[in-house]
């Protein structure tokens, strides 16, 4: 076997440091979420308290469960819709050469560079006019601005790689474009769709600016906004325990998602960037 040089030890040290650096803020957040009242005034590095009061309070003091459901609903709806639109758009952009295609791709990419604030007033007006203010539909609608360009871009890249002869065989079998997209290509794009879908879901879940600006009442809020607005039960209590608890609640499923779909997520990220 190979000798155990200093290099190896250094490597493991670095790995440990990287691990701690990534994970420590959660660990500490978790610790803090288990403390309440005056226990928050002291700093502990190891778990000394194990109270779940904060967790209960999070659900009691605001409609956190509703907030979570809202987030789930919005993120799922936007992701599903964006994927559907993107897969059809990608077919046109990847497999049919027509005039203006390059320009269109470029424009689609350009939209993903928009600062969200730049469309805020315009969107606000539009959402109000459509009657979607303080309504989850308004969020689903506005979230297309960052989910759609990305999904179109990545799916176009993947669709370009599918063999031409497969498409031609389908044409010979009498398939029209819709059949080709949904019955021949879509099954082959499943991994790409999963990757893109995950990334779109996570982006929609984490979105803050639109969620903050386009909702008014607690019942319509999504998780990020709910956390940002958590205040203590009374003026004397520090809300930090609650905030940490709420954060842990929303982080755990995301950690699970990442652990399970690690490969897919990384594939999606790199595909989007590298083919840029």
């Amino acid at each position: 076997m190979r000798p155990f040089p200093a290099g190896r030890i250094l490597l493991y040290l670095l790995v440990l440091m990287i691990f701690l650096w990534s994970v420590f803020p959660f660990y500490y957040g978790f610790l803090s979420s288990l403390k309440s009242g005056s226990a928050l005034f002291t700093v502990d590095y190891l778990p000394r308290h194990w109270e779940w009061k904060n967790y209960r309070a999070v659900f009691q003091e605001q409609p956190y469960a509703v907030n979570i459901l809202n987030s789930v609903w919005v993120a799922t709806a936007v992701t599903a819709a964006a994927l559907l639109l993107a897969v059809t758009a990608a077919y046109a952009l990847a497999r049919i050469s027509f005039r203006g295609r390059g320009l269109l791709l470029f424009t689609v990419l350009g939209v993903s560079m928009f600062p969200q604030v730049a469309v805020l007033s315009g969107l606000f007006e539009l959402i109000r006019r459509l009657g979607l203010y303080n309504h989850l539909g308004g969020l689903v609608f506005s979230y297309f601005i960052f989910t759609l360009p990305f999904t179109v871009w990545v799916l176009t890249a993947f669709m370009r790689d599918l063999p031409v002869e497969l498409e031609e065989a389908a044409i010979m079998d009498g398939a029209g474009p819709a059949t080709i997209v949904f019955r021949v290509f879509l099954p082959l794009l499943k991994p790409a769709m999963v990757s893109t879908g995950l990334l779109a879901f996570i982006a929609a879940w984490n979105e803050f600016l639109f969620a903050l600006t386009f909702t008014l009442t607690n019942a319509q809020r999504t998780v990020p906004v709910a956390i940002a607005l958590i205040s203590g039960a009374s003026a004397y209590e520090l809300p930090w325990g609650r905030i940490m608890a709420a954060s842990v609640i929303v982080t755990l499923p995301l950690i699970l998602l990442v652990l399970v779909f690690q490969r897919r997520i990384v594939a999606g990220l790199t595909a989007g960037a590298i083919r840029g």
Partner: protein
Amino acid sequence: MAEIRLEGVRKAFGKVEVIPGIDLTVAHGSFCIFLGPSGCGKSTLLRLIAGLEPVSSGRIHIGGRDVTRLPPKARHVAMVFQSYALYPHMTVFENMAFGLRLARRDRSEIERRVHAAARTLKINALLDRKPAQLSGGQRQRVAIGRAIVRKPQVFLLDEPLSNLDADLRVQMRLELSHLHRRLDATMVHVTHDQVEAMTLADRLVVIDAGRVMQSGPPLELYHRPRNRFVAGFLGSPRMNLLPGRVERIEPNQVTVVLPGGIRIPIRADASRASRGDPVTLGIRPEHALFEATESTGFRGRVTLVEHLGDQALVYLEWAESQPPFVVRTAGGDLPRVGDQRQIRLPGESLHLFDETGAAFDPASG
């Protein structure tokens, strides 16, 4: 079953004219092979017939119908692709059934047709497998099965055997031949492999740079090539093509001078040529003979002998800066490298081509 007729078919991709203009008829029920080097346009021609590409101008008729503007599914043709193009996520059964499903045929009919085709191709044990689990030869059968199931008027095959290894290729050649007879179908097959072409075709169409060089039964093209291209393309090793010049023209005979002053008389109708015109003399390696005595021919020095077991190829240097002359001879008295030999060129096996490559007709009478 259908006759295919191409009238003035032209195809250009942007500014590049791949097919300048072709008129061709493929009789129904025949096994027609488009043969030519890579890039000659044979695949393009096939795709034009299939309807995968629109023609730039001209008309295509299949079974008496003008299909020029029709999409592939309306033309009643089926295609077997070079890479088979099987749907990876579907089973063999589903692959073969796909076209019929799209045409909304009912379940029992689909099952009947797929099973029948599977039996013909001996793949019924594979119906539940996915393409990734099949070997190359099996995939090819499925591709053919997918075509058969549609009961098309015409089968189009795009280099179906080129992805197979040597023995499988020989076996599939036989099967394709059987299949053709069994289905009584019109088949158009594209290949660059002349052995495949010679053995399978009823009708051979040699194509170069988008033009039909010659078409007809394979043996006719082999023994009476109408131009230098076809002469050099068919036959392996290729025909010896010797550059020369016209020296004397007589009613049914012309004398050609080869490099080194060698004079060869040929019985041919060279009335359209004049003295001094450059020409090409052709003779196949199997027709040239070694002769002990001086006769119509020339001397050469053996530079290489390739022993193939039942026969040998002898390469001779006969004139400066000319490619070696090849003679194919059955066993027996084989020369050795360095030997000098006299080569006889039997008059009846000689071909003569003019400057443009067109063949001179054999002597009349």
